């Protein structure tokens, strides 16, 4: 049987640990602190977003309910072998808080939370693209006992990951160009602007997201549009 994959280093697993910039869109694999999950009991807990990135949003806005898995500490340490031999119902999160503690997210207790709870200043970690593919691989295995190569998972996720990357680039430019505006307000407006731009001309730009061979052009167009748009606003 093909084994479940392991990251080559812990750094390869995470995009960010500790503070995550507010311009980084909420995504599958993000870990939040102090979240109430009523169906799992009272009290705040640490959770990992497990909903597929394609399902998280309706246009620019998050869905009302988002599925999360509770995160807990476990004893011992995760080495490369642990990924392929243990914790088959979990996502492994070693060193989640930039520490040496071994955490896991439990897929058997996935539950919905209101998306308004997932405020970005409660986010303590974001997975890298490769880390997200590992999460998806482990979730598929937990649900079906099927091992899907993470390379193919990454290929299938490329359109939505590119969309998130473009949103981040767009919002960074917008927030930087508006130093006198409240960052949360500038961010919220720029997210709306970005999705309106993707959807203009009968969703011309959004359609390009589904064609990986057009992504380089789309990146250039997105950055150029954001620079022009927010430079003008600044004046």
């Amino acid at each position, binding site marked *: 049987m093909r084994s479940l994959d392991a990251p080559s280093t812990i750094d390869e697993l995470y995009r960010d640990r500790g503070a995550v910039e507010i311009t980084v869109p909420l995504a599958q694999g993000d870990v939040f602190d102090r979240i109430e999950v009523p169906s799992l009991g009272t009290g705040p807990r640490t959770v990992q977003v497990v909903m597929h990135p394609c399902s998280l949003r309706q246009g620019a806005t998050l869905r009302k309910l988002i599925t999360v898995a509770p995160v807990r500490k476990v004893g011992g340490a995760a080495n490369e072998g642990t990924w392929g031999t243990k914790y088959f119902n979990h996502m492994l999160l070693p060193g989640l808080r930039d520490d040496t503690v071994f955490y896991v997210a439990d897929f058997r207790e996935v539950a919905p939370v209101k998306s308004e709870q997932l405020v970005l200043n409660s986010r303590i970690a974001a997975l890298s693209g490769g880390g997200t593919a590992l999460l998806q691989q482990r979730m598929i295995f937990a649900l079906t006992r099927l091992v899907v190569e993470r390379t*193919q998972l990454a290929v299938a996720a490329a359109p939505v990951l590119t969309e998130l990357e473009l949103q981040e680039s767009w919002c960074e430019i917008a927030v930087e160009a508006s130093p006198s505006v409240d960052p949360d307000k500038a961010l919220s407006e720029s997210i709306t602007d970005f999705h309106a731009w993707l959807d203009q001309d009968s969703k011309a730009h959004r359609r390009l997201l589904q064609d990986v061979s057009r992504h380089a052009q789309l990146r250039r167009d997105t950055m150029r549009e954001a620079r022009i748009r927010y430079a003008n606003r600044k004046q």
Partner: protein
Amino acid sequence: MNTPQSYVKNATASDAVRDYTMLESPTASYTLRQAAELDDFAKMLRSATREQLQDSQQQDIEKRAAAKARRSVPDLLRELTEDRGMSWIDTAQLVGVSVSAVRKWRKGGDATADSRLGLARLAAMLDLLEELAVADPAQWMEIPLPLPPGYTIRPVDLYKLGGLVGILSIASNRQDPEEVLDETTPGWRDELRSDFEVVTAPDGLPALQRRTPR
């Protein structure tokens, strides 16, 4: 002076001729042996020139990278991501750092000399691809290479595997992707094979399905 045979290390076409039952005509036998020796010599020459070319290309990349590395890190990032259209994820992976590290560099964060050279090397590589008539190098780097069913490997993946010169060989049609992968990643046929393929689902989004045997 070396004769063609003195270069030959392994089994060769001329070895095969030696085991071959001699043709009746001595002239035909002689011609066959000569042709086999010439074929061996041509192969040896091709291999030697390829090695020399690859060494030169590697040196060329490094020289160009060193020149580009004189520019500031935000400048290099602007060239890669805004002018060329490379993704932040690929840029970070090809330089061997996290996406957030690269994004911090854009705002003036410190990058090590190695990282700066890594960015410069990537930018130099895209310049070289353009010189080889690749119209949109960043786009080309993301398009899967023509390989047998079961493999989705992009030039950008080959770059991660250290196959910079191999990418140039593919772009200039001197070598096919399988040949380059055999040289750079000998186990690729087993290690990088997938039983799944990405297709478009009825909702227009990508989906995975088990590959059907052909």
